[in-house]
């Protein structure tokens, strides 16, 4: 099956799916990197919801973005298992290292890599474990070099 390539076609492909809103939002964000505000009325009309309901869902879930992210998205795990092996120091180091850069830094609460922390996720698909400040600097340098 061809993946839909426009917001309208994503909405059309899901309108009969029970509980379609989250799958629709995921696909739109996958396509565009965020949920454009002008898609809200289209989604609301197709799924027979109010615009407030759609907005409420988008703003409730940390995963959904209402504005495009700047550059790469780097997420540092801040949950307990990573805290136990220096996760907070790593997060602090990341804040300092990325201050003023166009990389988006976010906390994440557990990537399920709890036996090999501290862990970092880049752009939702690339994972790094046992990340030291030095290793963090190296992976950021690699991101910047590729840009």
């Amino acid at each position, binding site marked *: 099956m061809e993946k839909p390539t426009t917001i309208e076609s994503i909405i059309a492909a899901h309108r009969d799916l029970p509980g379609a809103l989250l799958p629709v939002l995921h696909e739109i964000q996958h396509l565009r990197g965020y949920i454009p505000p002008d898609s809200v009325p289209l989604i609301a009309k197709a799924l027979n919801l109010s615009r407030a309901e759609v907005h409420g869902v988008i703003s409730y879930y940390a995963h959904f973005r209402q504005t495009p992210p700047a550059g790469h998205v780097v997420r540092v795990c801040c949950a307990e*298992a990573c805290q136990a092996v220096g996760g907070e120091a790593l997060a602090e180091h990341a804040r300092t290292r990325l201050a003023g850069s166009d990389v988006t830094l976010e906390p994440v609460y557990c990537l399920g890599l709890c*036996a090999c922390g501290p862990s970092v996720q880049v752009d939702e698909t690339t994972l790094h474990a046992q990340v030291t400040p030095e290793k963090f600097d190296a992976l950021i340098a690699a991101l910047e070099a590729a840009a």
Partner: protein
Amino acid sequence: MTPTIYVPRDAAALALGADAVAAAIADEAARRGIAIKLVRNGTRGMVWLEPLVEVATPQGRIAYGPVSAADVPGLFAAGFVTGGSHALCHGPTNEIPWLARQQRLACRRIGIVDPRSLADYVALGGGVGLRRARTMAPADIVRAVTESGLRGRGGAAFPAGIKWQTVLATPAAQKYIVCNADEGDSGTFSDRMLMEGDPYQLLEGMAIAGLAVGSTQGYIYVRSEYPHAVAALNAALATAEDYLGDFRIEVRVGAGSYVCGEETAMLESIEGKRGIVRAKPPLPAVAGLFGQPTVINNLITFASVPDVLAQGAAAYRDLGCGRSRGTLPFQLAGNIKYGGLVEVPFGLTLRELLYDFGGGSRSGRPLRAVQVGGPLGAYLPASQFDTVLDYEAFAAIGAGLGHGGIVAFDDTVDLAKQARYAMKFCAIESCGKCTPCRIGSTRGVEVIDRIRAANNGQRADQIELLQDLCDTMIHGSLCAMGSMTPIPVMSALRHFPEDFK
């Protein structure tokens, strides 16, 4: 015969460089003109050995790890393709004591099977439970699950058979089977490992549940932090249509909300709404997803069911201790030397897991505190490490096993800071429906800050205030998020009062 080499595709292995290792092996084999079959399996659960490369030999699979891409030419030179000896060689994988001492049921095929191959799953004994269930009356399937003593593995430990019986006995045109794979607890990864390493086992367990209660539609709710697990499930589902018969399963992806692991918030989320907790009753077994009777179980619960059907309820019930029957996949995490997945029957002590399996701390410093059961679980001091891993034994000390996640901390931990984090996490993740959780968590952060800043004269008043606040949260919250956040807070205060000075 073409030699088979296994390089895990599990997220933990990927995070430790498994893709680069797989690419290096393929390149080096091509350079040397050696034909190999490369299988991307799940993890054997020995995360400290990842990336763990295995080679199939007539003597069984031989393990090499942890392997980096730079090690690969040396491994070829040492003849690892035929199991040759090398500094990274650990001998036959199945004889590594850490693995040999486990008793794996739900996780029996993880790391062994090719997770993208239904034929491999069936060849390794998969599907027996589902075939048996198809010959049984629904009530008999439910009875087998009840008699096995299987309790919900998500944390609440409610008997699975009783829940299934309620759904079976509630008439409806459409019933649903929902798998809770919103594994948000820090320190837990067994759901993720099973989805990535043996997804058909989960599909089989859900299909059996469908037969048991008369449902043809299942949903798996997976957190968005697990994109590799989502991909593995969808790949398995794409090949499983015939295998599942009339039963249909759809994967639904969460969106970064911890409270959606609470079963009613999860239902709201699947329905396309904000993940706000529902008041109970009605129980989801009576009026759940889209208002219909719904079996909701944790992923490991469903993955345990095929064994119950295949081996019989008695074989499952014979494992374990007290009222905790069968096995639990524990997860050793945090500051631990040999971390990973340990599936054993209930009945070991926490100390045995931490030291006999875990090898103590990764840092080499003494273990000072262990949080069992995720962000809502108690912090236990060394004096409680001899507690038996059993639901009732943990309840008796004011703790819980939860989903089996064990996070170890060495003596550099500050338990007042951990208590503050517990309240802060609740404030971030509260769904906001009930006041004790929504407001109490923020007040909790403030009170702990005041305790840490106070002089001796003021501290006692603030501690009393914290206890009072926790009491309100415990008794006034709608769900476990608010009512259990006080558990890590109060256990930290009780066992480590010196950290609050």
